[in-house]
Structures are given as C-alpha cells and as structure tokens.
C-alpha cells in the first residue's frame, strides 16, 4: 500500500465522514453580508488594532514624526504608567466613571419609560415630542454656563451635563423603538384576550426591550463624550481634566494616554451592554454594530 492509499483510507485530515464529497465547497469569506467564522471575526478585530499599532510604531520609532507631535507607543505606555503611579490617574478614571454612572443612569431611568410612553400612547407623544425634539437641538454644551449658575462647579454640574446630553435624544430613539412594535403583535394579543394593560406588559414591553438595551449601549457612547466635555470646564479631577492639563504642559504622551484610556473604557461599556443583550434576549438576532 502506498502512502497515498493509506491517506485515502484514513480520510483526509479534518474530514470524518468518508462519504463526504471529495472537495467541500470552499467557504466564501468575501460574500456580501454573509457571516464569517467567529475565529475570523476575532482575529480580524485584533489585526485591525495591530495594523494601527504597527503604523504608529513605524512612523515614531524611525523618527519620521517628531515625538512632540506623536510619541511612540512605548512613550505613551510609560506616560500612562507615570499618570497612574505618580498622579493618581486611577482616581481620575473613577471620578469620570462615577459621573457617567450618575448622569447616564439618571437619564436612562427617566428617558426609557418616557420614551416608551411616547412610543405607545399618541397622547403622550403629541404632548412631549415637540418639546423634546426642540430641546434635543439645543447643544448640551451650551447648557454648561447655565448648569454652573444653577449648580456650581461640583459633581452635580458634571452629571447634569451628561444628563442633558443623553436624556433628550434617548427619549426620542426609545419612542421610535417602541412605536416600531408590529401592529399585528398587538392585534393578535387582543384577539387572544389581552386587555390593553396586559398587551402593554406582555407584548409591547418585551417587543421593545431588546432595542432599548441596544440603544442604551449607543447612548453610553454619548455619555463618554459629555463627561470629557464636562471635565474640560471647571474640573479638578477626571480623565478630561487630566487630558486638558497635560495639553497645557504640551505633554502629548499623556494626552494620548488619556484619550486611549477613554477608548478602552468605552469599549468595556460597549461589551457590557452586548453581554447584557445576549444574556437577556437569547432569542434575538445578534446586534450588528
């Protein structure tokens, strides 16, 4: 017996079914809107980061770009270390996280029920939508002076800015999600004996909740933006404050370390909501982005 025959009898590596066609259809990685294996998703994601890191390394370590404009990755890493060890950066991260937690949680706790009420009851919608739609166009940052006058320059003002930045648009997109509940869902429930109240709790709410969690994930991104804005004005702590002060001293390495920290924290928030979504709604399609 030749080694080829042995190979043929044993089956090609990786195939267990001897009746399988000699050549399996090659999976197409480039088909439009077609799923790819999970390992591919992960490794491509890592590759994306690696590419940026590589380009960054090349332009900095070779000296193409002056460190003053763009410090090398290791410089930024060192800056991060210094910030943490010598300047208590962890407390700043904590301060920012706390502000987000208060401002965002308050906005979510109010915006979700109001949005759902707007989306499900035309009366509420007619009453609130013009107000909120107008308020949404007033930039949150324009409220900073007002917030300082009202609340001083403490924590309340910071959380207040995040609240204003998140609350109004969140109301509107939650309302949109609630009103997108298929009418047939409700009709079917009425013919199955549901009262209006039970249709709300047993159909409209569960139909809307997955969307709401996904919208909270998106809104948490806005919260990270506004916390930095809040900390650029009259703050003594927080990531935004650190970035601003580092900028004043032209410490590009520390600025970048601060910005990247926000990126990582944002990613963690995103992951938290994605995990929550997958846990709470195992029946739902996976969210796209």
């Amino acid at each position: 017996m030749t080694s080829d025959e042995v190979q043929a009898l044993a089956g090609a590596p990786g195939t267990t079914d001897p009746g399988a066609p000699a050549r399996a259809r090659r999976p197409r990685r480039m088909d439009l809107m077609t799923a790819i294996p999970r390992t591919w998703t992960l490794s491509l994601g890592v590759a994306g980061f690696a590419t940026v890191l590589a380009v960054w390394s090349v332009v900095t370590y070779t000296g193409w770009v002056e460190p003053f404009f763009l410090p090398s990755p290791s410089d930024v890493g060192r800056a991060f270390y210094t910030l943490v060890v010598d300047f208590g950066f962890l407390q700043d991260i904590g301060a920012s996280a706390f502000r987000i937690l208060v401002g965002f949680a308050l906005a979510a706790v109010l915006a979700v029920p109001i949005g759902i009420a707007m989306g499900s009851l035309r009366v509420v919608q007619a009453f609130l939508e013009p107000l909120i739609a107008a308020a949404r166009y007033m930039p949150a940052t324009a409220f900073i002076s007002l917030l300082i006058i009202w609340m001083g320059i403490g924590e309340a003002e910071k959380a207040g800015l995040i609240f204003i930045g998140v609350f109004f648009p969140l109301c509107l997109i939650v309302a949109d999600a609630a009103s997108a509940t298929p009418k047939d869902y409700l009709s079917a429930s009425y013919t199955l004996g549901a009262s209006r109240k039970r249709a709300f709790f047993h159909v409209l709410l569960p139909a809307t909740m997955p969307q709401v969690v996904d919208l909270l994930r998106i809104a948490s991104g806005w919260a990270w933006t506004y916390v930095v804005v809040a900390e650029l004005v009259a703050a003594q702590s927080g990531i935004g404050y650190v970035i601003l002060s580092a900028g004043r001293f032209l410490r590009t390495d520390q600025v970048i370390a601060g910005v990247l920290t926000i990126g990582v924290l944002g990613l963690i928030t995103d992951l938290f909501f994605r995990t929550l979504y997958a846990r709470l709604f195992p029946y739902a399609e996976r969210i796209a982005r």
Partner: protein
Amino acid sequence: MSDIRVRNVSKHFRSRAGGERLVLDDIDLHVAAGSFTCIVGASGCGKSTLLNMIGGLQEPTQGSLTVGGVEVEGPGVDRGMVFQSYALYPWLTVRGNIEFGLRMAKVGREARRKVSDGLLAEMGLTDFADSYPRELSGGMRQRVAIARSLATDPPVMLMDEPFGALDALTRISAQRLLLDIWQRHRRTIVFVTHDINEALLLGDQVVVLSTSPGRVRKVFDVDFERPRSPAVATTPEFVALREEVLSLIFE
C-alpha cells in the same frame, strides 16, 4: 358555534389629500355557523379590511356586523385571528406562543401545558416546543400561529392570507393540515386569500369581491365532496368555476 352576519357594511378611508376613498361598499354577507368561507379578490379590494372588521380590529363607517348574534364591538376571544405575518412573539418559545391566550385567560400551568401538548402533537411541532420562532421555517411558524389561535378554542377563526408567504409545496401541506383540523375541531372559518384555487379547494362558500370599491360580486356555493384532495382542482367543474371567478374579478 357562531354564524356571522355582515349587514350593509361600508368603509371609507380618509386619503391624505383630504378626500374620502370608498373601500367597501354596502357589503351583505352571511356566514353559516361551522362553515368554511373564503373571500377572494384582487389586492386592494378591501378583503382584509372586511376580515379585520369582523375581528373588531377596524370599525365600519356604516352598517353592522354580528357574530353569534352579538354586535361586534372590538376584538375578542370568540374570534381567533391568524395573520399572514404570523405575528408570533419572538421572545416566547413555540410553547409560550401557543399558551399566550391561555395565560391571558389566567389558565393554570398544568392546564395550559395539557392544551399546548395536544396542539403541538397535532401540528407536528412536539420537537420544537422549546424553539424560538426565528429558528423555524415559514410553514412551521404558520402552524404555530394556527395552534396559538386554536388554543383558546374560539368558535370563529379569521385568517388573513395565512399561507400567502409560503412556497407552493409548503402551502399545499398547510392547506391539507387546515382542512384536517377543521374536520376535527369544527368552527366557523373566514379565510381571506387572493388565490382562487386555494379558495375553491378550502371553502364551502366563496365570496368574490370586486375592486375599488369592494362589492360582493357573487357568492358561490362550493360543494365538492369532502374531504377534498388537491386532485379536485383538475376536475372540469373546478376548472369551470375557477374561470368564472377569475372573469368576475377582472370584469
């Protein structure tokens, strides 16, 4: 069992331009208790609107509808509905969907389970009791939807193009299953479709609606022997009837 009477029912819709559009004009219809009535017509003839009015989901502009002698004043458990979109709840399993009406009626767990077990078996869905609707094919989803409306045992079942989204082969087996169920659980069925073959194959009575405005062109009594097989569609009587219905619709 309940009969359905539709008396002088008209329905206007206000158009965006501000004018009124007459969708259904002076509909008179009687559906005998326990019979199978199909309503056919071209799209836009108001057949779904008529069904929704019987279901209490829409109100007539004029006229009255009674089911079992009682005026229709909104949706109720005496009239189950099956939609073309299935309208299954994606957050509930197949069993959860089937038991939904029973839960609304505050039926206990054990009793609910007994009903859903029976329906699951009857629909050939026992192995999918714990699956979610999105894991099922279209034909299976529609079976779940039918089982869900049967669970509360309504004397009237209203079906709005329930097989419209199914492929031809799945549709045939769905029709057969529906006839089967109807033989076993006799109830009044009103079935809206634009498929004339389907209407003639299923119905005791076929109501042909004209388009804009929808008027009753003619009501046919279809008396092919039951149980019917799809082979009935090849008989000369069937073919002649189909031609007649077709010409009425396009007149």
